């Protein structure tokens, strides 16, 4: 078991956002977290790595309970996070953005070098010294993923990687994720685009109003159009 989340509850001030979230990710698995805008996908990710301060529950990563650790400590254990809205450092070059993400290599996770990442995202290799602010949306999205991979994570939380990207870039993203998977990185990906999710995921959870309301394999989800209709507006 790579990651196990139990009874995760989160609040923003007085608002209760997540209710008893439970999910599990196996070694080398790609798991989709599906749900509408505002269903709690991003908050789930932010809570797992400790960016949401008011949270309770048990988060076990690689057998260690990390529920009470600060963000940087959780992340430097090998739990990578790729935020939505492409929070790259616009003032920093591509190389420098990667440098921020760099962490020592880890025995139980694939090791990524700049060259390996530039092979994975050829566009980035062509603009090593370009400031992040002067890149297109697709290039920025690739950079955020590459930046997180520089930390040699064994698990990556990918928040809506296909949002706002052109179909062709989304296809490149599919390829990249499949390569990451092949290298041995476990992945949780939050999505609204079911086509995309289907291409990469082994299993899926559906989240609705802060509660997990389905968990199962993609085949199981395909067999339950009622659930898709009720919770996903797909």
């Amino acid at each position: 078991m790579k990651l196990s989340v139990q009874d995760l509850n989160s609040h923003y001030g007085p608002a209760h956002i997540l209710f008893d979230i439970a999910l599990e990710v196996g070694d080398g698995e790609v798991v989709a977290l599906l749900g509408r805008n505002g269903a709690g996908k991003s908050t789930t990710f932010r809570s797992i790595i400790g960016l949401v301060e008011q949270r309770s529950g048990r988060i076990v990563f690689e057998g260690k309970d990390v529920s009470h650790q600060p963000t940087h400590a959780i992340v430097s254990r090998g739990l990578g996070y790729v935020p939505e809205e492409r929070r790259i450092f616009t003032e920093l070059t591509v190389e420098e953005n990667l440098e921020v993400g760099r962490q020592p290599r880890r025995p139980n996770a694939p090791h990524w070098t700049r060259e390996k990442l530039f092979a994975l995202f050829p566009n980035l290799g062509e603009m090593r010294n370009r400031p992040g602010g002067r890149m297109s949306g697709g290039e920025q999205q690739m950079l955020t993923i590459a930046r997180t991979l520089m930390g040699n994570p064994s698990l990556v939380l990918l928040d809506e990687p296909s949002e706002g990207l052109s179909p062709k870039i989304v296809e490149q993203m599919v390829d990249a994720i499949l390569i990451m998977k092949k290298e041995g990185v476990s992945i949780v990906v939050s999505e609204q685009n079911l086509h995309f999710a289907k291409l990469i995921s082994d299993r899926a959870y559906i989240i609705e109003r802060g509660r997990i309301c389905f968990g199962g394999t993609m085949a199981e989800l395909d067999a339950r159009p009622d659930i898709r209709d009720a919770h996903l507006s797909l």
Partner: protein
Amino acid sequence: MSMVPTLLSVEGLSKSYGGVHAVRGVSFELKAGEILALIGPNGAGKSTCFDMLNGQKDPDSGRINLLGEDTAGRPPRAICRLGVGRTFQITATFPTMTVRENVQVALVSYRRQLFNLWSSTPRFEQGEAARLLELVGMGGYADRPCGELAYGDLKRLELAVALANQPKLLLMDEPTAGMAPRERIELMRLTARIAREQSIGVLFTEHDMDVVFEHADRILVLNRGSLIAEGSPEQVRGNPEVRAVYLGEGLVYDARHRKGLSA
């Protein structure tokens, strides 16, 4: 068709930033009641095109003819007065006001009643506001604060606000961004219905090919600032260059729209 008036005609529109051509020599026309999609890779120049059309940026060269008037270089306010409505990529509503009040504010500014101290907003144009909300299917939400609305509903409210202006042309920059697939289809279906009923021309950008192929009458494809293709959904789908730079293998949108891609 020849009787349908041309709302917008653009000729040789160009804009560059510091030597980089964001948009070069773009020309197209848009007729009343027509739904035109502008697609292309991220950074192809779609947003720049939009900004020039609604007056937020001045073109370096080229003509924009809107309802018979040359509007290149005019400020957004003036263009808005000519009958151009916009919805924003980032939802631009007042979160603490109710749904009805948001529409009323739009109506007040359209009627230029901003400085009329004798009219009070609560009563102003209630009937018209109700009609617009009904039109976008939000009649039941009139008294809810906007902050409480779901994302998809906010987008519909935005459409109502844009319609308060009684526009002849709607510019929509990624109108369905961040929405669930079915919500996207529904929003565009609604937009298309209103556009056809009221002979409003619609120009929109979009990355969701399901939405584009389902609703656009015509598609413009922009790459690196230039138009590389223009035509019906079928024509665009079959265009190898468009596939190479933008559409890809068609894995990530609905199979119904992949016709012609296998060739």
